């Protein structure tokens, strides 16, 4: 299938402008905003990597945080114990997370639906407990990495990672035979198998690739934050946020996870600045999941379509007023 789907000039201009803004951002804004932008890039990458598994293949995982944490710990241990340079550690972390995910995926992907969700969740919790009791990872003490205080460097690393994940999602999942096969597994797995697709191989590949990206991003996160702890990189909140970002933006779409990541991360940081570290974030997080699922099951991206279908906004409001009268 050809990649170019007739690029309109408007699209090209928007794309170019976005790229220019993204690449000159470090020279335009304060370091505070830059750190938020770095975080947004990281979460866009994570949400897109989760979307490969949960959106395109329909296997909802509540344990994707495990890949993130495993990548973070592998990169961290390579850098502190073997003193490898950052990029080599990152590449090795990616490869090892891929192999790890392939080994884990083989038995786990025999499960489907709710069982898969519980299985990945149990596995992720198991990894957290394992890292807590092992001594090589620093256990409950956490792991301290050599500090590197260059905000621009991390912004460009995260930007590059997010772009790579985006390109992989665009090229391999949106516009290729492989993407069609993956979607066939989502729509009807048995039918896909009867048509001659090697579903075991496809599922394992998608699981491993999406885990690999989460792992690489985890490695970059470890170096950025310089201190990792089982509760911070392997805790359930990481996986929760990935799931929520994708659901919020629109599951199984290319731009949904990006939109969800931006909205949720900016909201989170805004709350952090206004109220400080607060458990109220959990309330808003939980409440937004419930609301999105109840009223916008297709995510924020479907909002324009719904409004169009119901006529204009004003007519919607008029209807509401009539009902209330």
């Amino acid at each position, binding site marked *: 299938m050809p990649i170019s789907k007739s690029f309109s000039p408007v699209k090209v201009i928007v794309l170019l402008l976005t790229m220019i803004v993204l690449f000159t951002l470090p020279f335009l804004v304060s370091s505070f905003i830059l750190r938020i932008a770095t975080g947004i890039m990281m979460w866009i990458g994570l949400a897109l990597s989760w979307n490969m598994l949960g959106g395109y293949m329909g296997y909802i995982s509540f344990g994707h945080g495990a890949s993130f944490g495993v990548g973070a710990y592998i990169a961290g241990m390579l850098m502190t114990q073997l003193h490898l340079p950052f990029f080599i550690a990152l590449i090795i972390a990616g490869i090892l997370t891929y192999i790890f995910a392939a080994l884990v995926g083989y038995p786990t992907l*025999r499960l489907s639906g709710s*069982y898969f969700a519980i299985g990945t969740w149990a596995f992720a919790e198991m990894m957290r407990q394992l890292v807590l009791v092992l001594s090589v990872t620093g256990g409950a003490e956490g792991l301290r990495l050599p500090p590197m205080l260059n905000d621009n460097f991390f912004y460009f690393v995260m930007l590059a990672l997010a772009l790579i994940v985006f390109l992989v999602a665009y090229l391999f999942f949106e516009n290729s035979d492989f993407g069609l096969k993956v979607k066939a597994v989502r729509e009807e797995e048995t039918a896909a198998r009867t048509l001659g697709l090697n579903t075991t191989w496809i599922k394992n590949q998608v699981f491993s690739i999406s885990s690999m990206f989460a792992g690489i991003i985890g490695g970059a996160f470890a170096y950025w934050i310089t201190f990792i702890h089982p509760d911070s990189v392997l805790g359930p909140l990481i996986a*929760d946020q990935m*799931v929520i970002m994708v659901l919020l933006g629109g599951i199984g779409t290319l731009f949904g996870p990006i939109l969800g990541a931006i909205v949720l991360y900016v909201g989170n940081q805004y709350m952090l600045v206004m109220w400080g570290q607060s458990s109220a974030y*959990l309330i808003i997080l*939980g409440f937004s*999941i419930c609301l999105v*699922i109840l009223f916008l*099951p297709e995510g924020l991206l479907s909002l324009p379509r719904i409004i169009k279908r119901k006529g204009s906004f004003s007519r919607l409001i008029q209807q509401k007023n009539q009902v209330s009268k």
Partner: protein
Amino acid sequence: MGLFTQTFINGILIGGIFITIAVGFSIAYGVMHIVDFAVGEWIMLGAFTAFWLNVYTKIDPLLLIPFIALFFALIGYLFQPVIQKVVNIKHRSAAMMALAFTFGLSTLLRGSALTLWGFNNRNLVTMLSEKNINLFGITLPAIRGVATLFSIIVTAAFAYFLYRTKTGITIRAAAENKTVAGLMGIDGHRISRLVYSIYVGLTAMSGVFIGCIFSVFPDMGLRYTAFAFFVVVAGGMGSFSGAIVAGLMLGLISSFVSVYVGGAYVFLILFFILYLILVFLPKGVLGKGW
């Protein structure tokens, strides 16, 4: 030998409480086909309701249990239509949406509890808290014995209800095949609502016992969600006898691991076993699940 017997009895007694949770959970799964990530939060809310009622009214938490069970059954009854709406959503993966919804609900409840009541541990003090039972040279905390006894009675009553009454038979029919049961004139919505309300009531009631035996804190839900999943998955989703075996198994494993291996390893080993059972015995240890 004394330590071994003590650990064994403790395990059985803890397992007794998990059975009650698992039985409600697996019937709710059977009828509504949703896996409730919020099960631990109902336990937490049950325990906290008992705590605050105890603070303000000075009534013993054990005497509050019937009231709490009824109160949460009412909450479940009123809340069920919302979950039903999610299950009926026109979406390609409606079951997954329901799962994510309960996940959001659990985050919401946990966050609210943390914000309202902070991270502190609280103790539920009952009239039995200081008392012990001596049985053949083994000392048992009286509250554990009472909790297990009570759980067994409730579970037996629930089993009687399910297998011997007309409503119970309709529930089991709906769990087996909702469409056919509907054709036989069974109102699926009414059954779902009833089952969900029983499930929430039973779970909150067990929460009071758990709060009495251990302690009450807003973050406790996550741990008991894990336990409930363990029992339901190990027993096989929707299997009554499986839930009993798995509940006892969970009690014994956690009790023996914490005594002989170390408290830090309890969750590691439990999650490992849960994962292995899921992958290799998806129908549960007795092979009776759906």
